[in-house]
């Protein structure tokens, strides 16, 4: 096994035992990037020099007895995480040359934890998209089959990890932007509870929905990262002052846990193979002695409409600061999708339409949230597919935005309710394309999600699958 294919846990052990150095590890990742990024296009910016310097420093620190939790671990950041002095583009021409004046809170925390920043990963511009095709810096390809989309919007973060160009990567999830690409690339994607991780210094998409998470190869690695990134931030007023448990202390097994299966999810337009994969996963959990309970989330069918109204409205306001005066370039450089969302949101907030769209959506959002509240009175967690389809071919849905939007049906509900969700690999389809399932829990139940995810992945071992690059 190459160094760049290690999990964080494995790498930390080898670093601690001096079997390898952070420089070795970083070089292995950079070599992999050099070899395959041309084709995959996972990175917009690779900071080779900076990464090697950080790795050297990490090695010295380790010698000096520093044992920061991610010391010397090479990671990649979605290019909406502001990095002081390192170009941050949101994959949009508008920010093509923007060099941030500050580090976001999560970036600062990761640096403090000793992580080595390899570079910035590609995405659907402004995180608008489900496929990774909507980047001003080129399409990101799925490492498992390059004719297919890797899922979006955190396409580069997912693809870079799946292609072992890094040991972990960060992402943002506003309506599924972590879980969808995680499931399409066979990695573990965490969308934490809204407010669990600070949004400060991350380019905002929809402020009331944006959740800051990450990609890792295993649930254990994901927990390790959350230990670093979670916590209340005085610079983000929406981060509750809740203690951060040691997420790495993952309980074994799922015996006795009640896991809900929403009946509505299987009656909506969903691919046969996805349905089967999900049923297999449910069966697996049952075998592990979890109690499977049918639940109802009756307002799910409205979630895409609610999501697109709230998201577009907030997007239209959040993208207003990009006027080319203080930084970036003029608004005519926004791409088609950003323009579409800005226009849509401007309309839904405009005089005479606010009540019919924005207000109505906020009310139905309440009902969707109540669906989950009721469900969690009965169950500890919910299991569901991530996407109604397997990864699709590049170009297949680009001309039909509404069709693209509908692929978010199973993911947007978690953002509307502010609950955490963990996407874990559920195996490959007959076309050898990865799909995932997601585990959802009540707000601040990440520990339980790791517990279930860990038990599931240990018994299935799907995460060990690697793409044939």
């Amino acid at each position, binding site marked *: 096994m190459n160094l760049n294919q290690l999990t964080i846990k494995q790498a930390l052990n080898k670093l601690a035992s001096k079997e390898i150095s952070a420089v070795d590890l970083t070089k292995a990742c950079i070599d992999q990037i050099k070899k395959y990024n041309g084709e995959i296009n996972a990175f917009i910016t690779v900071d080779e020099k900076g990464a090697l310097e950080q790795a050297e420093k990490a090695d010295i620190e380790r010698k000096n007895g520093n044992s920061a939790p991610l010391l010397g671990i090479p990671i990649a950041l979605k290019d909406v995480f502001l990095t002081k002095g390192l170009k941050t583009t949101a994959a949009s021409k508008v920010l093509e040359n923007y060099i941030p*004046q500050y580090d976001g809170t999560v970036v600062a925390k990761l640096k403090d934890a000793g992580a080595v920043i390899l570079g910035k990963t590609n995405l659907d511009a402004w995180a608008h998209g489900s496929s990774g095709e909507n980047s001003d810096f080129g399409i990101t390809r799925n490492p498992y089959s390059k004719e297919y989309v890797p899922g979006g919007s955190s396409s580069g973060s997912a693809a870079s990890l799946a292609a072992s160009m890094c040991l972990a990567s960060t992402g943002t999830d506003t309506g599924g932007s972590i879980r969808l690409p995680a499931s399409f690339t066979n990695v573990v994607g965490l969308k934490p509870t809204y407010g669990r991780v600070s949004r400060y210094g991350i380019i905002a998409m929809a402020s009331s929905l944006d959740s800051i998470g990450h990609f890792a190869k295993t649930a254990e690695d994901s927990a390790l990262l959350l230990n670093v990134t979670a916590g209340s931030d005085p610079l983000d007023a*929406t981060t509750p002052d809740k203690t951060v448990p040691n997420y790495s202390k993952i309980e074994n097994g799922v015996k006795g846990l009640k896991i809900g299966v929403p009946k509505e999810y299987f009656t909506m337009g969903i691919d046969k193979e996805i349905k089967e994969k999900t049923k297999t996963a449910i069966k697996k959990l049952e075998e592990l002695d979890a109690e499977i309970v049918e639940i109802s989330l009756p307002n799910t069918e409205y979630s895409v409409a609610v999501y*697109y109204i709230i998201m577009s409205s907030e997007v239209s306001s959040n993208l207003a600061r990009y006027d080319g005066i203080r930084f970036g370039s003029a608004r005519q450089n926004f791409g088609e999708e950003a*323009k579409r969302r800005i226009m849509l949101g401007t309309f839904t907030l*405009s005089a005479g339409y606010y009540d019919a769209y924005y207000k109505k959506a906020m009310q139905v959002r309440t*009902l969707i949230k109540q669906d989950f509240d009721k469900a969690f009175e009965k169950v500890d967690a919910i299991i569901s597919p991530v996407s109604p389809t397997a990864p699709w071919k590049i170009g297949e849905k680009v001309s039909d935005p509404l069709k693209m939007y509908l692929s978010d049906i199973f993911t947007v509900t978690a953002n509307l309710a502010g609950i955490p969700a963990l996407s874990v690999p559920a195996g490959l389809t007959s076309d050898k394309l990865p799909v995932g399932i997601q585990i959802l829990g009540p707000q601040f139940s990440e520990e339980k999600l790791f517990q279930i995810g860990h038990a599931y992945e240990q018994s299935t071992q799907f995460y060990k699958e690697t793409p044939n690059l």
Partner: protein
Amino acid sequence: MKIDVKHIAKLANLTISPEEEPKLEKQLEEILSYFDKLKEVDTSGIEETSQVTGLENVTREDAIRDCTISQKEAISGSKSTHNGLFKVKAVLENS
């Protein structure tokens, strides 16, 4: 639902080319009619959820924090500056 693309573009400070306009109009109207689905839902008396944290009264003490950046940093991203100020084409309130 009809949408006045020109008017909305003006509010949004976007330039939509005459070629883009009909396509955008069609797409937006299609999406808006999808939103009509929500009309089915009875929301009378339902509270609006604009935030999900349940937090209230989150404030900071009135103290100067070490967040201020230098003039040089402040204008570093701008293509058009003059003596430490950002420069734009004249916006005259009073002619």
